[in-house]
C-alpha cells in the first residue's frame, strides 16, 4: 500500500531564513506526490504536485519541492520564510483504486511556525 511519512511534527524557522518540510514516501510504481497547506480554521489549499518530469517542482506562494527517487523523498522548500507561511502542511501520495480512480493518502502533517 502507498504511504507517506512526515517525520517532524513541527518545524520552527526565523522569518527570512530558508525552510524545509520533510516528506518520504513508499509506493509501488511511479509516485504521484502532492503538497497541501492548511491555515487555521481553513480548508486545504493545493501547493504543488509531482507527476513526472523535472525533479524540482515549483508551486504557489514561492514554494517548491524536490523529488528524490533514490531517497524516496519529496521535501517542501522555500528560500525565505514569511510569518504568514505559518500553517499545517500535508504531504500526500495518490493511491490507485480499481477502475483507474484514485484517492489521496495523507501524511500526519507538519506544523510550520515562522517567528519574526
Amino acid at each position, binding site marked *: 500500500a502507498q504511504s507517506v511519512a512526515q517525520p517532524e511534527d513541527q518545524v520552527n524557522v526565523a522569518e527570512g531564513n530558508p525552510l524545509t518540510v520533510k516528506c518520504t514516501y513508499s509506493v509501488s510504481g511511479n509516485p504521484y506526490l502532492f503538497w497541501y497547506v492548511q491555515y487555521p480554521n*481553513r480548508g486545504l489549499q493545493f501547493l504543488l504536485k509531482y507527476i513526472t518530469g523535472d525533479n524540482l517542482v515549483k508551486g504557489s506562494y514561492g514554494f517548491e519541492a524536490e523529488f528524490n527517487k533514490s531517497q524516496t523523498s519529496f521535501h517542501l522548500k522555500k528560500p525565505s520564510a514569511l510569518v504568514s507561511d505559518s500553517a499545517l502542511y500535508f504531504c500526500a501520495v495518490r493511491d490507485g483504486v480499481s477502475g483507474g*480512480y484514485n484517492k489521496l493518502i495523507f501524511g500526519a502533517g507538519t506544523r510550520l511556525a515562522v517567528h519574526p
Partner: protein
Amino acid sequence: DTAVSQTPKYLVTQMGNDKSIKCEQNLGHDTMYWYKQDSKKFLKIMFSYNNKELIINETVPNRFSPKSPDKAHLNLHINSLELGDSAVYFCASSQTSGGRTDTQYFGPGTRLTVL
C-alpha cells in the same frame, strides 16, 4: 468565486441525532470526495463519487450515507450521531480524464461537534 463550498461551516448537535452536510463544486469536475480530519489533524478518505456513482467506500460505518444528486453535488448524511463522529469533514473534487484523476481541490470544511 467559491470553487468547492460546504454548508454548514459549523454543526453542533446531540448524540443520536441525524444530520447532513452539503457540498457543491463549480469547477465542472466529475469526481467528488469526502474526507474526515480527526482531532489530531489526521486526514482520511471516506467516500468518492464519479458522475454520481460511488467508486470509493473506505469501510465507513453505514450510519454515513453519501448522496450525489448530480456531479456538482455530494452530500453526506449521518444517522445516529456518536461522540466519535466529532471531526472536521472536508469535501473535495477533481477531474478524472482517461481514468487518471487530476489534482483534488478542497472545500473549507465542516466542523461537526457531537455532544
